[in-house]
């Protein structure tokens, strides 16, 4: 990593407090005005599993967790054994040598052992070993050159609700760790430039929740599932203050149907789940399509197939979401690239769902949803577009009126004179069934065709609101790296690295996936001299979609399906291979 760009890693057993330790550090960095990105690796086990947390802080904006890390806090022996050999120099290992043995032989050159008597400090200050992490945090703050006061503030934020006394004890422990480190070693010359202008730090899913609130969400119905549960937890915690009804349902079938009922009644409602849970929403997705009821679905991907690796990341559900439910009907798929974009995707999703009266997906993943990143303060004054709504008491109201745009005026129960039945069977403009005594009669065969075309026209209308892929980097480049959704992070950082290799590359990033801006996509692909598609699944699900729509086969592909996010250097290596091959 270049100067002014440092990643640290904290590892330990589940229950060791890896997450809270990392969080305090990340907050401290953000409050110091640094740009922060994080990645946490954990397991599908409640206690005892191995957890590690990487936090990157830099003077300039960065996107991914970074390839390398310079400092390691090892809270257990396994962390020292597994992660110490992976460190980059200059760097060090912060550990408590009263409790674990660091085999210095495994350290790369230029990486030092930086022992801290963390347990002893914690015992000394508080009489309990519980705060040993905080002692290592203090040491860490010194080594990277953070201000002790900022660290104190971050501890206060984290532990504030436990009372002032606890905060004080934590501060003392941190200070002792800091002082110990200061005596041992001068700060590394990482050239981080804390500047005091604090930044906001949030995860992709937190940002998405904010966007949903700004977009007027009124009801969230969900069944717990990693990595979507966090959305329910956040919403539940904020439900009272922000007037959101959070309903944990008995399963995902219920969640999706409940969201449809609520939207039918006029409340902006959403659900969130992961692939296995979404699989149970497939039938009701078609119900939303047919009844033209808005519905917002966050599909937070994780490793499949089936239960797979529940705590690991993948981009493997696009194909399911794209094909979900029998027959054809309009659907909209957004795949935000970053925590910032999660915010926008959320409020846009509600507007799109109500404008086009159809299901709208926000396709995130474990990596994006749970990564924390520093972001610019979001604009809370977002447009609220409720789409076509009928006036009370209109004579001869036709809920499914055939229009040029395909969009027909909605009515909400309680409105006078607009009573209608929303039906999952094919129906006419008024909403009357044509599946029973009318089916197959020439007149209604024609009605079916026209209703189908009306609904599908909404996709053409919606296309105008969809955003074309973004080309990032130089227009002319040796290589165009194509990606969608969260893979942006590694690609953008890879471009930075490539700059130093003499290769010019740019990044073609897709985020509004469906309806797809095919013309722009084709033009961009045709303009590329060489293309490399990077995506996190085995079969190249987006690659297939792109080819089906544009007919263009991308030159090269880099795919990952091991549960880990992309690392910039993997992309760099592949780019070099591709261009060497020319």
């Amino acid at each position, binding site marked *: 990593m270049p100067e002014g760009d440092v990643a640290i890693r904290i590892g330990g057993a589940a229950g060791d407090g890896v997450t809270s330790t990392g969080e305090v550090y990340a907050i401290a960095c*953000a*409050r110091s005005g640094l740009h922060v990105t994080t990645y946490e690796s954990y397991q599908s086990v409640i206690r005892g599993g191995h957890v590690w947390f990487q936090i990157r802080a830099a003077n300039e904006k960065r996107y991914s967790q970074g390839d390398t890390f310079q400092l390691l806090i090892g809270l257990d022996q396994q962390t020292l054994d597994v992660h110490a050999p992976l460190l980059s120099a200059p760097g060090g290992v912060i550990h408590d040598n009263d409790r674990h043995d660091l085999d210095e032989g495994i350290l790369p050159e230029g990486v030092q052992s930086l022992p801290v008597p963390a347990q002893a400090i914690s015992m000394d200050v508080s009489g309990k070993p519980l705060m040993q992490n905080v002692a290592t945090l203090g040491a860490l703050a010194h080594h990277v050159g953070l201000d002790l006061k900022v660290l104190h503030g971050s501890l206060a934020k984290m532990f504030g609700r436990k009372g002032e006394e606890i905060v004080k004890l934590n501060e003392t422990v941190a200070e002792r760790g800091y002082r110990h480190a200061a005596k041992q070693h001068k700060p590394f010359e990482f050239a981080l430039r804390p500047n005091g202008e*604090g930044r*906001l*730090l*949030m995860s992709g899913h*937190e940002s998405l929740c904010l966007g949903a*609130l*700004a977009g*007027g969400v*009124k*009801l969230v*119905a969900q069944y717990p599932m990693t990595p979507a549960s966090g959305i329910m937890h956040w919403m539940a915690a904020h*439900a*009272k*203050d*922000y*007037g*959101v*009804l959070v*309903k944990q*349902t*008995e*399963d995902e*079938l*219920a*969640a999706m*149907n*409940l*969201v*449809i*009922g*609520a939207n*039918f*009644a*006029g*409340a*902006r409602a959403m659900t969130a789940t992961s692939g296995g849970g979404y699989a149970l929403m497939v*039938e009701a997705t078609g*119900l939303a399509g047919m*009844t033209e009821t808005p519905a917002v679905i966050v599909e937070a991907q994780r490793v499949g197939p089936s239960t797979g690796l529940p705590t690991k990341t993948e981009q493997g559900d696009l194909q399911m979401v794209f094909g979900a439910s029998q027959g054809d009907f309009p659907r909209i798929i957004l795949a935000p690239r970053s925590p910032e974009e999660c915010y926008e995707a959320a409020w846009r999703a509600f507007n799109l769902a109500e404008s086009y009266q159809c299901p709208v997906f926000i396709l995130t993943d474990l990596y994006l949803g749970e990564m924390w990143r520093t972001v610019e303060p979001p604009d*809370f004054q*977002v447009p*609220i577009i409720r789409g076509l709504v009928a006036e009370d008491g209109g004579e001869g109201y036709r809920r499914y009126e055939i229009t040029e745009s395909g969009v027909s005026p909605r009515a*909400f*129960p*309680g409105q*006078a004179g*607009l*009573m*209608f*039945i*929303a*039906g*999952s*069977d094919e129906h006419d403009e008024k909403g*009357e*069934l044509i599946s*029973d*005594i009318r089916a197959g009669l020439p007149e209604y065969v024609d009605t079916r065709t026209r209703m189908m075309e009306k609904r599908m026209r909404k996709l053409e209308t919606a296309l105008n609101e969809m955003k074309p892929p973004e080309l990032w980097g130089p227009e002319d480049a040796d290589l165009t790296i194509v990606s969608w959704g969260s893979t942006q992070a590694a690609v953008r950082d890879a471009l930075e690295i490539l700059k130093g290799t003499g290769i010019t590359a740019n990044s073609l990033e897709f985020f509004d996936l469906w309806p797809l801006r095919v013309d722009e996509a084709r033009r961009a692909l045709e303009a590329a001299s060489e293309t490399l598609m990077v995506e996190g699944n085995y079969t190249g699900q987006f690659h297939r979609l792109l080819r089906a729509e544009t007919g263009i086969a991308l030159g090269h592909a880099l795919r990952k399906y091991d549960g880990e996010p992309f690392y910039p250097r993997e992309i760099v290596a592949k780019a070099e291979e591709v261009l060497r091959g020319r």
Partner: protein
Amino acid sequence: MAVEVHVIKSDTKPTWCPGCGDFGILNATLKAVQATQLDPKDLVVVSGIGCSSNLPHFLRSYGFHGIHGRVMPVATGIRLANPDLTVIATGGDGDGYGIGLGHFIHAMRRNFDLTYIVMNNEIYGLTTGQASPTSEKGMVTKSTPWGSIEWPVNPIALALSAGASYISRGFSGDPKQMATLIEGGLRHKGFALVDVFSPCVTYNKVNTYPFFRERVYKLEDEDHDTSDLLAAYEKAHEWGERIPIGLFYRVDKATYEEEEPALSRGPLVKQPLGLSQEQAEALIQEFR
């Protein structure tokens, strides 16, 4: 404003087979709605899929004719979005007690304030006559040509054990009692079940009008205490020569909607969308 039956009845003619028990249920429902003097614009009738689930089309109210087995969550979603609306959920025995059984029980334990009318014909009508979860053991159907080998579900007993707060059973052959039961359900605050024996004249040659006429008796004609859970269980398990209809059990308890904090400010659909300046600022503070 007095609401007449003809106002609530839609122009769409039911497509049920002549003699189908569902006609009686439609009429009883119309009568019960009229008795409550509900403005039909504030009524939503929700159903799944099946012959019975076509019912919403025959009322001039709002309606949602969803997918098979999911009537409960859709109805719940409507209630939670706007508790000013009266919600009648309806459908068949297959819809509610077969594929939808889980939702049914969870809805009852939550005591949502809605009325659920199940048109129980002990058969799958619309799919042309397979065994349903209430088909009796031994019943010959298209899917059980040598007789069903399953014991049927007992909706009344299940409702009792799930905690529904108004549990009743009607019979299409007695639309007057049924109208009273439905009206009672509509007036009841909490989950009201009205299970109705509704003969399928086309596919169920066992549970016919005469079958029920010979067997049913009214709970209100006997000394049944509708507040006694164990007595209700006992009645629920009665089957064979004598089959009780009427109100099995009723209890007052808080509804879900009453206890949900987000509804304390009124219906969700009447709340402003988006965030106020203060709310936005408070939120931002959390991320600093």
